[in-house]
């Protein structure tokens, strides 16, 4: 049983670290973007754990872009306005890409942003060459990333379920947050709904490992890894 004094001392220690002081200055948009990149990195871990290959690419500079640039707001897969980065992956002969903040044309023709997505590599090459918008036909994975909110409401779940219903036949659909919500957990408990991952954070390695293993297993199944 932790005592009040232990908790207060632990808080004090955290607040006295200069890195904590700089993090406290981030605005909500920055926190959301960082969480998305963290989830992106967990997908890379999942591909590597499945013995796949990963190369980080910049749309203009190619392999090993430096700095690594991600979209500050939803954008187009083919946009070359910045050297937007993505991860090119191969696993058991299947080639695919992990993207952040890309917009896809849904089956209803509406445009949807997917926080973290996996898309077929061949089709992505065509999309980039022709400068067109990707449809959901070759979209395999859609992951919603929601940064901690003291009031993570069921509405977020309904919105994501509505979104993925317009994204075609996804292999993986997950809702991730570093926060928790009993209401959302209930909402996602129905069998046909996306897998929820709450409290996803490097501060809770067991949760992060569970997420990576889950994605790894789904990727192994999709790519027929035996």
């Amino acid at each position, binding site marked *: 049983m*932790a005592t009040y004094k232990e*908790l207060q001392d632990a808080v004090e220690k955290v607040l006295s670290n200069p890195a904590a002081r700089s993090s406290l200055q981030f605005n909500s948009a920055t926190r959301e973007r960082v969480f998305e990149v963290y989830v992106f990195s967990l997908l890379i871990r999942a591909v590597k754990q499945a013995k796949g290959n990963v190369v980080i690419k910049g749309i203009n500079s190619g392999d090993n872009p430096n*700095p690594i640039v991600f979209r*500050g707001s939803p954008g187009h897969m083919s946009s070359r306005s910045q050297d937007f980065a993505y991860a090119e992956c191969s696993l058991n002969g299947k080639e695919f890409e992990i993207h952040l903040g890309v917009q896809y044309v849904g089956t209803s023709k509406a445009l949807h942003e997917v926080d973290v997505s996996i898309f077929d590599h061949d089709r992505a090459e065509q999309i980039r060459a022709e400068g067109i918008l990707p449809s959901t036909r070759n979209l395999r994975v859609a992951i919603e990333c929601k940064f901690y909110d003291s009031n993570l409401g069921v509405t977020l779940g309904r919105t994501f379920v509505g979104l993925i219903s317009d994204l075609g036949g996804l292999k993986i659909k997950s809702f991730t947050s570093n926060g928790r919500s009993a209401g959302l957990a209930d909402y996602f408990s129905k069998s046909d709904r996306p897998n929820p991952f709450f409290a996803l954070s490097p501060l809770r390695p067991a949760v992060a490992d569970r997420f990576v293993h889950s994605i790894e297993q789904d990727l192994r199944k999709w790519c027929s890894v035996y």
Partner: protein
Amino acid sequence: MAENTQQALDELLNRLRRNNAQSVADEIARVVARGTTEEIEIKGAAKELSQRPLDPDEAFRVAVEMLVASIEPIVMKNHAMKVIEENMDTVTSIEWRQDFVEKSPIAPEGYEEISIPDSEGVEDLEKDLKKLVKLMGEA
């Protein structure tokens, strides 16, 4: 936890305000002031939801949870950098930039770009945050 949690909560908010983290302190104050809801049984009727204030222990727990959430992005970025670095030659930084279409009537200059400078002590901070999260689980 002990009866001194009200004092700890006040000290935490003051400390955040002194550290120029006014917005985090204000958000904690807003959430705590909003209270919580709980089911109450009304005689002869079905259960209804009712609003009630948080007690000091609950309020302190909410405040610490929000504090951790506000600080952990720098640890998340550190972890992401490590994974990305394993797949590259060198990485100096991660940045977020705005997308735009060439020849737009409004040029992208001035659009917000996000970059997070490297901070010393992130590894220590991660250890301290993990300890805090563990203590919260035990409190």
